[in-house]
Structure formats: structure tokens, C-alpha cells
């Protein structure tokens, strides 16, 4: 069980690095979905010995929304906006990958400064969650396409979920579902917005949107 969890944490780190280095939106969407799936599995495996209905339900709903519904929605947005890849990011992809390494080092340092409630793999989960948040934030600021930024937002959300997992924060069922619903609605609205922006202006480059004046 411990090895499985360690492999899952490693996969989480690798998927974040993939997010940093990949230009194709399809790959990015699938990676974010895979992250949500890994996190859902981890939250179930984490409490394997004392499984409750509420916990199972939250995990399944989060997998359903973040790994199945949202990716469909975003794939649809990609198709409608005719954007297959992030062409000219503000920071290049190899540079992003190396910055990703730097962020990983920073989050490992920060993680080692924090008091760990658990030992073993779980203590590796804290730096991983910090790393996920930083990667999400970095993608938000360093990419031009609105769709990629939505994906950055989702990666950051995954990081926050992982952080809760690392500290075994157990919100009540209602709070968890509420957060999920927020994310779902946010991405839903962003998807519709992207569609309309694209229809009115023929592109979804956010830095050009700054020049719009009524």
C-alpha cells in the first residue's frame, strides 16, 4: 500500500512537470484529469482502514466532476475555439520545465520547514501539493491562451486538494461538495466565456483582451 501511494505521489510530481513542458491543449486537459483521478484514489487509499460512506462519496463525486465532466467540457471548448496548442507562451517550454525544477526545489525546501503530521510518503505529499499550486500559478501567469489559464487554475485547485490530503484535513461532506460545485461552476462559466470571446474576437489571447475599450 505504501509503495502504491509513493508511486502515486511521484506520478503527481511528474504530471505537474508534464503540464509545464507540454504545448498541446489535449495533453494538458488529460494530464489535469489524470491528476484529479490520482488524488481521488489517494484520498480513498489514505483512509483504507476506516472507510466511510461520506468519504467514498466525496472521492467519487470529485473524480466524476474533475476527471470526467470538466475534461469533456474543456475538450469541447478546445474544439469550438479551434485552438489545438499554446503557440507562443510568455515563457518557453524548455525554460518552463527548468523553472518547474526550481519550483520543485523551493517547495521541497518549504515542505521540509513545515511540521509534518505524518511520516513517509505523506510527508512527501506536502511539498508535492505546494509544487502543484506553484505550477498552477505559473501556468496562469505565463501562458497566453485563456484555455491554458483555466487549466492552470484547475492544476492549482488540485494542489489545494492535495494539501488538504497531506494534512488529513477532513472537512464535512457538505463543505467538500460545496467546493467541488464552486470549481465546477467556475470552469463551466469560463468555458462559456471562452466560447463567446472566441466568437466575437476570433481568438482567445488574453493579452490582447487588455486593449479592449468600449
Amino acid at each position: 500500500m505504501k509503495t502504491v501511494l509513493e508511486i502515486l505521489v511521484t506520478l503527481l510530481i511528474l504530471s505537474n512537470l508534464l503540464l509545464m513542458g507540454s504545448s498541446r491543449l489535449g495533453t494538458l486537459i488529460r494530464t489535469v484529469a489524470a491528476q484529479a483521478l490520482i488524488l481521488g484514489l489517494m484520498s480513498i487509499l489514505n483512509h483504507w482502514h476506516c472507510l466511510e460512506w461520506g468519504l467514498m462519496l466525496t472521492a467519487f463525486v470529485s473524480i466524476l466532476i474533475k476527471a470526467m465532466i470538466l475534461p469533456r467540457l474543456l475538450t469541447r471548448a478546445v474544439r469550438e475555439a479551434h485552438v489545438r496548442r499554446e503557440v507562443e507562451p510568455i515563457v518557453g517550454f524548455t525554460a518552463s520545465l527548468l523553472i518547474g525544477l526550481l519550483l520543485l526545489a523551493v517547495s521541497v525546501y518549504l515542505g521540509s520547514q513545515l511540521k509534518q503530521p505524518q511520516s513517509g510518503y505523506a510527508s512527501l505529499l506536502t511539498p508535492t501539493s505546494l509544487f502543484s499550486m506553484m505550477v498552477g500559478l505559473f501556468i496562469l501567469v505565463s501562458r497566453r491562451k485563456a484555455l491554458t489559464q483555466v487549466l492552470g487554475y484547475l492544476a492549482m485547485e488540485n494542489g489545494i486538494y492535495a494539501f488538504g490530503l497531506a494534512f488529513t484535513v477532513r472537512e464535512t461532506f457538505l463543505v467538500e461538495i460545496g467546493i467541488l460545485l464552486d470549481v465546477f461552476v467556475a470552469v463551466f462559466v469560463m468555458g462559456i466565456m471562452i466560447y463567446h470571446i472566441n466568437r466575437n474576437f476570433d481568438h482567445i489571447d488574453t493579452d490582447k483582451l487588455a486593449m479592449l475599450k468600449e
Partner: protein
Amino acid sequence: MTSLLSFILALTTAPLIPGIINRIKAVSAGRQGPPLLQNYYDLAKLMKKGVVYSHTTTWLFKASPVIQCAAACAALLIVPFGGGAALLHFKGDLLLFAYLLAMGRFFLVLGALDTGSSFEGMGASREVLISALTEPAFLLGFTALASFTGRFSLTGICHSVSFLSLFESAGTATLLIVVAMMLVFLTENARIPVDDPNTHLELTMVHEVMVLDHSGPDLALIEYTAALKLWIYGALLIGIVNPAGRHTLAMGLLIGLAGMAVIAILTGFIESIMARLPWVRVPQLIASALVLSILASIIVGW
């Protein structure tokens, strides 16, 4: 005794590996392909031929193939094979190994630059860029293995790591390092995702372009060195993955040879199903090997 035997085995059977790779590529393309021993025939033919030197070259050009081959042979002395110890092993031989191969490459580049051809200069510049990224990936990967096993020689590391440990502590790290070393293997041997050994198109060559001006026995030495490098990196990969432990002499060598054949066949298949990456994407691929190595060291150090 075992070590001497495996050293001689490496020197004699190394040219067979490119033969296996070429055969696999031919078979998966539906051709019959050259005989497995073709490389030996080529080497024998080249040794009989005369040498042509350009007027612009100096002694460096003549020395470069010899030094490359000597460096590869010296590196081979340090690499363990077939469960036994290497002929030479001492604390820190890991670094000597990396720098022996770096020296070989340095003289390859010097020889290419010495011809004065801008074409070869381009190949040399690419080779140096590739090696600047590959060396840290290799060294960091082996540093992670060294700190996790507590040994600091290639023989010690290959004896302590085994396939079985993939399922125990630091198994994830070992797995990451195996993937990183596979990428290093392909890169260092100028294999397909990075460089195409068959192409003679100026835009795509890296290794082949640097040896264009060599002829006769010089070329034979270079071809032989390339085969030796395949063997060396293959032996290291086997050393990490191999179910180590004490075997009898014959059994250990047999396992080693089988592993080498598996690696050659795997390389052949990779070359058959993949295209060479565009040059701008190559640094990204090697950087990902670097990322894997660093991640492995972080997990080990945690």
C-alpha cells in the same frame, strides 16, 4: 577471472549489438537486412584500406580516433558485467567513468573541428549541446543511486541495486533512474529520438557528420568505439535492472548477454516505430531525463 572474461567478451561481441539493432529494424520494415556479423566484415574491410587526410588537418585529427577508442576501452574496465565485479573498482570510479567518456567525446569534437569544415563544426556544436544536458542527467541519476545504496563505485552500486528493490523502499526512485538511463543510453549512442545513425542529410546529422572526413582504419576505430559505447551503457542499464545476487560465472554472463540482447531489440523497435525528433525538441527530451534524475535524487534524499 570473471572480470577479465567479461572484459574480453565485451571487446569481442560489442560490434554484434549494432548488427542486432539493424536486423530488428530491417525485419520490422519487412526487409531481410544485412547479416548479423556485417559490422565485423565492415571493420575488417576498413582496416585493410588506406587513409586519406585533408591538407587542413593536423595531428589532432589523427590522434582523435585513437584517443576515443582508448577512452572507451578504459571506461569499459570500470563497468561491471554479468554479476561480477569490474576489472577496476574503487571508491569514486563513477566520476572517472563519466569523465573518461567526456574526454572521448571532447576529442571527437576536436577532430571534427580540426577539419575546418563548417559542416562538421555544426555537428560538433550540436554534440556539445547534447552532452552538456546528458552529463548532469547521468551523474545525478548515479549520485541518487550512490546515496541510496551507500556505495560510490559502479561495481558497488550495481551489486546493491536489483530488480527486486523496485518493489521495496526507494523503488520509485530506481524506476525513475532506469527510465532516465534509457534516455541517456539513446542520447549518448546517437540513437533515434535524438539522432539518426542512418541519415546523411546535413540538417539532421549529429554523430555521423563529425566522422565524415575519417577514412580507413580511423573510421574503423570510430565505428568500433561506437559499438563499445553501446555495450558500456547497455551494461550499466543491465547493472541497475538486473536481478543481481550471486550467480555462477556462466549463469551471470548468460544473464548479462540476454539483457544486452533485450536492450538491442528494444532499441531496434524504438527506432522502427519512432521518428527522429525535430532538433528544437531534442533538448526538451534530454531535459526530461535530467528532470527524472533530479526527482529521483529528491525522493531518495527525502
